[in-house]
């Protein structure tokens, strides 16, 4: 389905709850609110007949931005649907009951960012099943001190401006 038609139909169906942004001729981004998340995914996958690709998440300090990619192969562009799950305790509805291929990517987003997907059939970590400490979510911006891996030094030198193993001020941690 062509780009203009797709943008029109999404705006018609969901109205105020979505904002459509076109960053380049081949990339369209749709920002949606949490409560219509599953309906939007269903609409794009089944009615507009896009292909399901994968998902991703970015931690923005106030919340976690979750997105899924739906390419339209015949028309050569990617449609990305995004939503924002607020902290603390970010939660979203799971789309894996409509799209079984989303099961593993939602498990990975849960494992890395602590986003809880409601109604997911089997929400457990996918990448580190038996060796992870229970409350360690590696990609979250707030990480407890005991989970930070130690900085390894081979040269044995102490840096003059380092205090007790903390990085010097003004450097990216």
């Amino acid at each position, binding site marked *: 389905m062509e780009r203009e038609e797709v943008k029109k139909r999404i705006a018609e169906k969901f109205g105020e709850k979505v904002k459509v942004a076109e960053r380049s001729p081949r990339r369209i981004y749709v920002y949606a609110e949490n409560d219509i998340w599953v309906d939007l995914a269903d609409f794009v996958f089944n009615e507009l007949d896009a292909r*399901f690709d994968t998902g991703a998440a970015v931690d923005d300090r106030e919340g976690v931005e979750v997105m899924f990619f739906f390419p339209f192969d015949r028309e050569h562009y990617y449609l990305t649907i995004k939503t924002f799950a607020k902290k603390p305790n970010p939660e979203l509805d799971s789309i894996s009951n409509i799209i079984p291929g989303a099961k593993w990517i939602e498990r990975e987003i849960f494992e890395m960012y602590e986003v809880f997907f409601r109604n997911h059939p089997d929400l457990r970590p996918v990448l580190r099943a038996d060796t992870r400490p229970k409350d360690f979510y590696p990609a979250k911006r707030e990480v407890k001190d005991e989970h930070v891996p130690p900085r390894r030094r081979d040269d044995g030198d102490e840096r003059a401006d380092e205090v007790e193993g903390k990085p010097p001020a003004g450097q990216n941690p």
Partner: protein
Amino acid sequence: MVKKVPIGPFHPILEEPEFFELHVDGERVVDIDITIGWSHRGIELLSERKTWDQVPFLVERVCGICSCSHPYAYVKAVEDLLGIEVPLRAQFLRAIVAELERLHSHLLWTGLAGHFIGYNTVFMWTWKYREPVLDVLEATTGNRNHYAMLKVGGVRRDIPQEEIPNVLKMLDELERNNDLLTKAILDDPVIHARTVGVGIFDKEQCRLYGALGPTARAAGYDIDSRRDHPIDAYDKVEFNVILRENGDVFDKAVVRQLENFESIKIIRQCLKAIEDTEPGDIAVEVGEIPPGEGIGVYEAPRGEVLHYIRSNGKNMPMRLKIRAPSFNNILTNEVSVPGNTVADAGLITAAVDPCYSCTERVGVLDTSSGERRVLTEADLIRLSVEKTERIRKELEGTER
């Protein structure tokens, strides 16, 4: 009575770890439970501490066999963010390295599948035919794998003009050898009996699970990122997309063999384009990366690789999301394995060409009595080879 049979984390025929637990009833598999993550090295988080130019060296080592795919998708994502085009000569150079890699990857898979069925000569031949491809890669880029050819804005090195005739000669010979191999596989009745109808994954399932690459094309699901989302030189060359209908292991093998011919065609066209032009610019200057986001897509030998990059204006990426095609394809095993026998389960899981290492023993756990029997890798291959021998005897018996 349902027993559980774990396979993994070191799979018998492949080199990467996955753990499959099969629930069997007699000889038939009833259900499968998949655990992954043995090779999880945290590359996405490591890339947040490297500068934009250092990241291609890191993502190259996501996978050793398709080591041009991940840097290619990454540089396309950054170039999508910036909105720039690379010079024409660099576009053809990128396509040449990428297609050479596809050749050696498909031949590698064919060899391993042959070894598992019990055709060790297929294994030895395909890996012997693969060596000239690696030699050409070494002569033109400097290394057999992990070429470090790609950077944001172009390529790092040019191919010397005097190497081009050698590459063309190698391609001619490879085409003859691949033809021999394809005919040997397509016509053999024992391979037919072992692989036709085994591990079927059909078109509707492909749509629901998001299957990619040869796994999807074998079922008739018509997707190929080189044609659908063309990047760089792929909209300037001609090639066909190979489709089959049934989605079983045989079709997956045929798709890979026939794709080799298409890759040879693409390389020849790109080499001709380079030969006709004078050596010129191979990269554009790239300054700071402004805030924004980009998606880069490339068709690796196993399927589509997707990289999503987000920048907040600093000199390191804020977020890099890497999705290897095997993440989608391995999940399809939960539909294609149940209903087949234990001897076939290893072959079906290998047919999606997973990009993870596996080698281990298979444990058979009898859930009612708690007794545990352990089969080694040699036993699993022996089960598979015995089935091949049985089929061969049956076919010979019916012919007489």
